[in-house]
């Protein structure tokens, strides 16, 4: 599925915090949305999944998922779409899972909302867990009994079980150790390769984005200041802000104290 954002403006009161002409995630593509804190990248991903208004923001413009306009959906239409077609994973995986339910019950509730029977739901949950290399035994746990990496894989497994076609990932590895980050990034790549899902990957980490994403859009103060194929854009950034970002990355092997 493809996602196209056009003339998107997001604001709080009389302050406009996002003003994007165009942002596109093609079918089966992984696109990086990069920026520093306050750049507007997170509120943009919340707007795409229909949660910006509940965060107190206003949203204008167009967000189309395979030609279907999302900005005009009401909450019940959103409930059907969310998870089913489009899912989101967050920076702090443990706190994004409802703490009062066991992981297995979270799956069952989400899947039944989308029409599965209880037995089907249990079966699909176990399969999705194996797909993200987790033991189905973890379904009996509460979210706080998982490590950060396990919880992030559970969140991805939930998107898989719901057969979401578009994944919005907001800094999904920023809170994880580098060895765990490598696992999650590999999993996202595999989901794209095997399931053909499209991914909007929101991150501040250009090194991660350069290895993961086909295309990249750089955001500063609510606007996309540069975008293009990842390799050329980061190798030879045209915009001064992108140049500053690239130059500021601490790199191994560049300095010995």
């Amino acid at each position, binding site marked *: 599925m493809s996602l196209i954002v056009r003339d998107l403006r997001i604001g709080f009161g009389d302050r406009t915090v996002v003003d994007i002409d165009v942002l596109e995630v093609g079918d089966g593509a992984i696109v990086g949305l990069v920026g*520093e*804190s306050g750049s507007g990248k997170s509120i943009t991903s919340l707007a795409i999944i229909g949660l910006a208004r509940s965060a107190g923001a206003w949203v204008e413009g167009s967000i189309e998922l395979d030609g279907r306009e999302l900005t005009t959906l009401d909450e019940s239409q959103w409930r059907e779409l969310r998870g089913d077609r489009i899912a989101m994973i967050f920076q702090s995986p443990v706190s994004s899972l409802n703490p009062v339910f066991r992981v297995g019950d979270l799956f069952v509730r989400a899947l039944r909302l989308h029409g599965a029977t209880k037995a089907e739901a249990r079966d699909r949950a176990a399969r999705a867990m194996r797909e993200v*290399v*987790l*033991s189905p*035994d*973890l379904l009996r*746990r509460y979210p706080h*009994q*998982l*490590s*950060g*990496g*396990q919880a992030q*894989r559970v969140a991805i497994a939930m998107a898989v079980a719901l057969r979401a076609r578009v994944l919005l990932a907001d800094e999904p590895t920023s809170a994880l*150790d*580098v*060895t*765990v*980050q*490598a*696992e999650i*990034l*590999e999993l996202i*790549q595999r989901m794209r390769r095997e399931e053909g899902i499209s991914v909007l990957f929101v991150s*501040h*980490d*250009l*090194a*991660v984005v*350069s*290895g*993961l994403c086909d295309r990249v859009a750089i955001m500063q103060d609510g606007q996309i200041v540069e975008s293009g194929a990842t*390799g050329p854009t*980061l*190798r030879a950034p045209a915009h001064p802000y992108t140049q*500053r*970002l*690239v*130059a*500021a*990355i*601490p*790199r*191994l*092997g*560049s*300095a*010995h*104290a």
Partner: protein
Amino acid sequence: MLELRELTVRYGAETAVDAVSLTIPDGPFGVGLVGESGSGKTTIARAIMRLVAASGGSVLHDGEDVLRARGGALRAYRHAVQIVFQDPDLTLDPRMRIGTAIAEGMRAHGRVSREAAAARVSTLLGEVGLEPEHAGRLPHQLSGGQRQRVAIARALAVEPRMLVLDEPTSALDVTVQARVLELIAALRQQRSLSYLLISHNLAVVEQLCEQVAVLYRGHLVEVGPTAELLDRPAHPYTRALRAAVPELDEALPAPAIRPDATADAAPVTDGCPFADRCPMVLDRCRDERPELRELEGRRVACHRAEEAIELPLEPPRG
């Protein structure tokens, strides 16, 4: 000089730091402390600052045991060693003006007149790249990077010889981080500071530290000169950490160690703490804990270190 000797910290039944021995020489010198979350990095920092009680071992400052220090000796130690946390907001009272926050430490540690303190605050603000006007501001009127500079100025106010820096730039944007790292590098030369720098970012450690110590589940698994450890890691866990760092314009690193698929890390028994995730594990590793030993200029705790150090750095992509 600060010396940890078999420092051990237990929280109830759980051993967070297990007999860690590590020396931080006089400045200018940086020692990096790396390892995954829960490996005990922050617990070591807190034990050094006496914010948690050690369960065993000692911390020697210029030969004096600081864990048992009281009165004047303890005050002198608290002048000499200061800590900077990841989140400056934990250090700064939101209602206290920046100048007052910096002067507070100074005045708590000795008799300083109000005028002298104000002058010192201006100097310190300049030293960390802020303006004298910032003294009159409240923390929320500054950016995150500026607040971290204030936290550093506050730590420097008592003229310490050593800093414990606990992920000092992890909460900052990358362009801001770059400038704070430059500040730390400059201060270390100007003030001949030594520091223990806790970071999850190996590139940051490489930039600021002569030595690096690698922790895994409370155990020191490798320690030695930064360049050698990063170029030729001898412990499989150091190799995994090194290999997992994503680099600009390169393919993503393949996961180098087995994911924790089932949940609880197997309890560490007599064997190597890394055995259940190690790609080079032998039966022997599960029964016999490897001791830290010298190998090619570093100390490493692995039965197969001689083989590991010879392996190419990037694992084959599978």
